[in-house]
C-alpha cells in the first residue's frame, strides 16, 4: 500500500475519513478531478455498506443490548445505531455522503436523551436512526439527512420542520394557536439558517405562530414504553384547527417581490405559511453566507478566518443553484482555497473523524465497534447526543488534558488490537528502524513533524540498541510506533 499524491490524500481526509489500505485500489489511478467527481457524484458508487455488516475483513458490530434483546438492532437501539454509523464511516464506498451526514447531524443537532425521555428508549432511537422500510413509520432524522446529504437545502429544511424527532426536540409537538411554542421558531433562524443578528425577537414570535399546528401524532398502537410494538411510530401531523391564521410580519422579505407579511389564510391552507417562511429563509443571502463560513471551517481551515472572497463566491454558487448543495460542495473541493497546500492539516479533527481515520489507517481486524463508544464519549463526542441544539463545540474546544489523554489512550487501544496484524503485514518489507518509520508514515498520516518529534520517534525505535530485525522487535515497535503516531498532537489535525 502507499499514500496517494498529497492533494488526493488531503481530499480524502476532508471529504472522507482518510484512506484505508483496502481503498488504495479505488483511488490510485484517479486524477484529482476524477477523485472529486467520484466523491461528489456518489450515486455512481454502490450503497452497499449496510449489507457488508457482519462480513469478514470488516470491523465487527456486537449487540449492545440496551433493550435486553439479543440481536443487533440498529433501527431501535441507539448504541447499535452508533455502531452502524461508525461502520458506515469506516467502510462506505460513499465517504462524502457520510461526511456530509455528520455535518448535518451537527447542524440540526438533536439529542437522543430528550427523545428517550419523551418517547422511551426504543422509540427515541427509532426517531433518529430508523432506516426507512425496515419497520413501519417514517425515516429516522439522520436517515433523512443522509438521503438529502447533497440534495436541496430547501427540501431538507422542510423535512426537518416535519421531522418527528425535531418536533419533540424543539417542542413543536406542543405548538398550538392558544400557546405558541417559540423553540423551533427561534432555532430555525438562529441555528438552521440566517444566524444571530439577522432576525428580531418579534420575528421569533411570528415564526412560532407560523408553525402552530405543525404537531405530532402516534400510530394507533403507539406507546412510549420499551416493550412497545416495534412497528408503532410517531409522525408529523398537520392540525389545521391548531393553526393561527392571522397575518405574520417579519423584519426581512418573505417573498421575492419584497413583501414581508404572510397574509391571513384559511385554516385549511395554513400549512403554506411555514413553506413560505422556509422558502424565504433558505434563499436569504445571510443563510448562504452562514453556510459558506461553516463550510470554510468544515472543509478549508479552522486556523484562518474565512476569506471574504470565499464566502461571497460560495454564497453566490448556493444562491444561483437555488440552494442545491451538491454544486456548492463541488465548487469548494475544486477551489484554489481547498487545494492550497497551506490549508493541509488546518482543521482540528472531531473525535468521530479522529477515531474513524485511526481505525481506517491502522486497521480493524477483530475490532468491536461497541468499544469505541466510551472512548469517544471521553473525547467529547457521542453520536446522536450533541450537548445542545447548537451542536458540538468545534475547533480547539475539543481539546483539554482529559480529552487529549482519551485520544492518546484510544491510539493505544487501536494499536494493541492490531499488534499481530501490523507486524504480519510489515514483516516482508521492513528491515530497519528507518524502514519501519517510513513504511508506517505511508500508512498512518499525521501532519508533518518538526525535527525534534521526528527524532523522538527514531530514538524510540532504537531505544534498546541497534535494529536486530527479529519478529518480536518488529511486533513491539510497530505497535508502539502506531500508538505514538495516532496519539500525537500532529495526528489530531486533518
Amino acid at each position: 500500500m502507499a499514500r496517494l499524491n498529497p492533494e488526493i490524500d488531503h481530499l480524502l481526509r476532508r471529504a472522507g475519513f482518510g484512506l484505508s489500505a483496502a481503498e488504495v485500489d479505488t483511488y490510485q489511478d484517479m486524477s484529482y478531478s476524477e477523485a472529486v467527481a467520484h466523491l461528489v457524484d456518489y450515486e455512481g458508487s454502490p450503497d452497499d455498506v449496510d449489507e457488508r455488516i457482519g462480513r469478514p475483513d470488516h470491523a465487527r458490530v456486537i449487540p449492545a443490548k440496551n433493550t435486553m434483546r439479543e440481536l443487533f438492532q440498529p433501527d431501535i437501539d441507539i448504541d447499535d445505531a452508533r455502531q452502524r454509523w461508525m461502520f458506515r464511516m469506516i467502510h462506505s464506498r460513499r465517504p462524502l455522503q457520510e461526511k456530509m451526514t455528520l455535518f448535518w447531524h451537527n447542524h440540526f443537532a438533536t439529542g437522543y436523551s430528550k427523545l428517550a425521555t419523551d418517547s422511551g428508549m426504543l422509540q427515541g432511537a427509532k426517531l433518529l436512526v430508523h432506516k426507512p422500510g425496515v419497520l413501519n413509520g417514517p425515516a429516522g432524522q439522520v436517515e433523512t439527512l443522509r438521503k438529502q446529504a447533497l440534495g436541496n437545502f430547501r427540501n431538507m429544511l422542510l423535512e426537518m420542520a416535519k421531522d418527528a424527532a425535531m418536533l419533540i426536540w424543539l417542542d413543536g409537538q406542543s405548538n398550538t394557536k392558544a400557546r405558541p411554542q417559540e423553540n423551533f421558531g427561534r432555532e430555525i433562524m438562529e441555528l438552521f439558517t440566517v444566524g444571530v443578528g439577522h432576525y428580531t425577537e418579534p420575528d421569533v414570535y411570528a415564526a412560532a405562530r407560523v408553525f402552530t399546528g405543525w404537531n405530532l401524532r402516534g400510530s394507533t398502537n403507539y406507546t412510549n414504553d420499551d416493550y412497545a410494538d416495534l412497528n408503532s411510530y410517531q409522525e408529523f401531523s398537520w392540525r389545521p384547527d391548531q393553526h393561527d391564521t392571522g397575518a405574520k410580519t417579519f423584519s426581512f422579505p418573505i417573498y421575492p417581490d419584497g413583501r414581508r407579511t404572510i397574509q391571513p389564510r384559511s385554516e385549511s391552507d395554513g400549512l403554506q405559511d411555514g413553506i413560505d417562511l422556509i422558502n424565504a429563509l433558505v434563499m436569504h443571502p445571510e443563510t448562504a453566507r452562514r453556510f459558506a463560513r461553516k463550510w470554510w471551517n468544515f472543509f478549508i481551515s479552522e486556523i484562518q478566518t474565512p476569506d471574504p472572497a470565499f464566502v461571497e463566491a460560495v454564497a453566490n454558487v448556493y444562491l444561483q443553484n437555488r440552494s442545491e448543495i451538491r454544486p456548492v460542495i463541488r465548487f469548494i473541493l475544486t477551489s484554489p482555497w481547498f487545494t492550497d497546500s497551506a490549508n493541509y492539516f488546518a482543521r482540528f479533527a472531531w473525535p468521530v473523524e479522529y477515531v474513524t481515520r485511526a481505525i481506517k489507517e491502522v486497521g480493524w481486524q477483530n475490532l468491536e465497534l461497541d468499544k469505541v463508544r466510551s472512548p469517544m464519549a471521553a473525547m467529547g463526542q457521542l453520536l446522536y447526543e450533541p450537548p445542545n441544539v447548537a451542536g458540538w463545540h468545534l475547533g480547539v474546544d475539543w481539546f483539554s488534558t482529559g480529552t487529549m489523554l482519551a485520544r492518546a489512550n484510544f491510539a493505544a487501544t487501536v494499536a494493541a488490537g492490531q499488534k499481530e496484524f501490523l507486524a504480519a503485514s510489515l514483516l516482508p518489507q521492513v528491515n530497519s528502524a528507518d524502514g519501519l518509520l517510513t513504511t508506517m508514515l505511508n500508512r498512518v498520516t499525521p501532519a508533518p513533524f518538526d525535527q525534534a518529534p521526528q527524532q523522538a520517534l527514531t530514538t524510540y525505535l532504537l531505544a534498546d540498541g541497534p535494529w536486530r530485525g527479529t519478529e518480536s522487535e518488529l511486533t513491539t515497535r510497530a505497535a508502539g510506533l502506531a500508538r505514538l503516531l495516532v496519539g500525537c498532537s500532529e495526528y489530531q489535525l486533518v
Partner: protein
Amino acid sequence: MSVSRRIFIRDGVATVTLSLAAPSFLTAIAQAQSSNPNRRLVVVYLGGGNDSLNTIIGYRDAAYYNRRPSIAVPAGQVLQVGTDASGMAMGLHPQLAGLHAIFNEGRLALVQRTGYPNSSRSHFEASDIWGTANPQNSTTSGWLGRYLDTLPRPLDALAAWNTTGETPRALLSGQSGVPAIPNASTYTFGSPNRGQAALQERAAAQTMATNPAAGRPHLAYLNGASRGAIETLDRVAQASQYTPTVAYPNNGFGQSLRTVAGAIVRGVGSRVYWTTTGGYDTHAGQGGGGGGAYGQLMATLGGGVAAFYTDIRNQGLAADTTIIVFSEFSRRISENGSAGTDHGAAGVMMVLGGAVRGGLYGTAPQLSPGHPTLENNSGDVRFETDFRSVYARILDNWLGVNSVPILNGDFRAGAPAVF
C-alpha cells in the same frame, strides 16, 4: 531520583505510571487559583432516587408504620438523633452507625425536606435539575461547572475530579473541562506494550509534546494539552499510591472515596470531587426490619462516608473538607404492591465535615394523610428547603464565591446555616 514502575493491564492495553514527584510548580498553580485554596467539596450522588423516609425516620409517627407495613424500620432499631423543630423524634437507619457517630460529634447536618416546587418524577430530568440548579431549563451548564468557570485562567487541569466515567450535568461547563478519573491507578498512559517499551513510548510522547512547534500555534496548543495530560498523570499517580489510615469498604463507592482521600492527602489540589453510588431506584423488594436491599444501600453509603471522614480527620484535613450527599428525588410515602416505593418528591440532604455545624435542619414530614408537610394528595413529601439555598450556602460560605450569578438568582434566604 528513584523510579518505581507499576504496570496495569486492562482490555489488553498495558498502562504504566511513573511514581515521580509531581512538579511542585503545578501544585502551586492549583493552590494559587482560589481564595480558600485548601477548601474542597466532595459530592456524593445517590443515583436512582433515595427513599429518605427510611434514611431518617420519624419513628414515633404511627402513619409511617401504617403506610409502610413491610418496609418500615422498627422504632427499636433506629439510631436516635433527637427531636427537630417541629417536635418530631427522628432516627437514622441502623446501617448508618458511622454517620450517627459523626452526628454525635456535631459534624453532620441533616437538611430535611429539600427539593423544589413541582418536583420532577423523571430520573433524567430531575437529576439534570439538581445538576443545573434550574427547574425551568435543565439543559444548561451545571452549577459546579459554573463555579469552576469563576476560577482564574489558565485553569488547573485537576481543578475538579470526577470519579465516574461520564461527566454529570453538575460539572458541565463551556469553559472548564473536568477529567473523568474513576480509578487513579488506571488513569495512565496507555500502551500496546509492557515494560521497558511502554516506558520508552511515554518518554517519546513527552518529548514530542514538548516541541514548541514554532510557526504553528494551533499545533503548539495541542502540544500544551498533551503535555498537560502527561504531567497530570504523575499527579494522579500520587493519589493512587496513597495508603489510607483506615480500611475502606471493598466496593466501588468505598474505593472511589479512597481515591479522593488519596488525592486530598497527596495535595493534588482539586476543589471539587464527584462520586456516586447507585441502586436507589427501589421499586420492589426494598426489604424490611432495617435489612434487605435498602439496608445494603445504607451500609454502602454509611460505611464509605464514615471511612472517608475518619481517614481525612486522621490526616488533619477534616476542617478543609465538606461532603454533601443528595439524590434526584425521594420516594412515595406508601409502599407499593411489590414491597418497594415509587418516585416521589422532597428528601433529605446531608452536609458533613470538620467545619460543618451539625444537627437537624428543617422539619420532618408527618405522614398522616392531609398533613401540610405533604403534597400530591398526601402521596409525597412537600419540599420545605429549596435545594438551591443549600448550594448557595456552600458557594458563599464554603467555596468563597458569590452564589447569585452561579445560581442565576439569590437563594440565600432560608438557607440552613450549616457553616
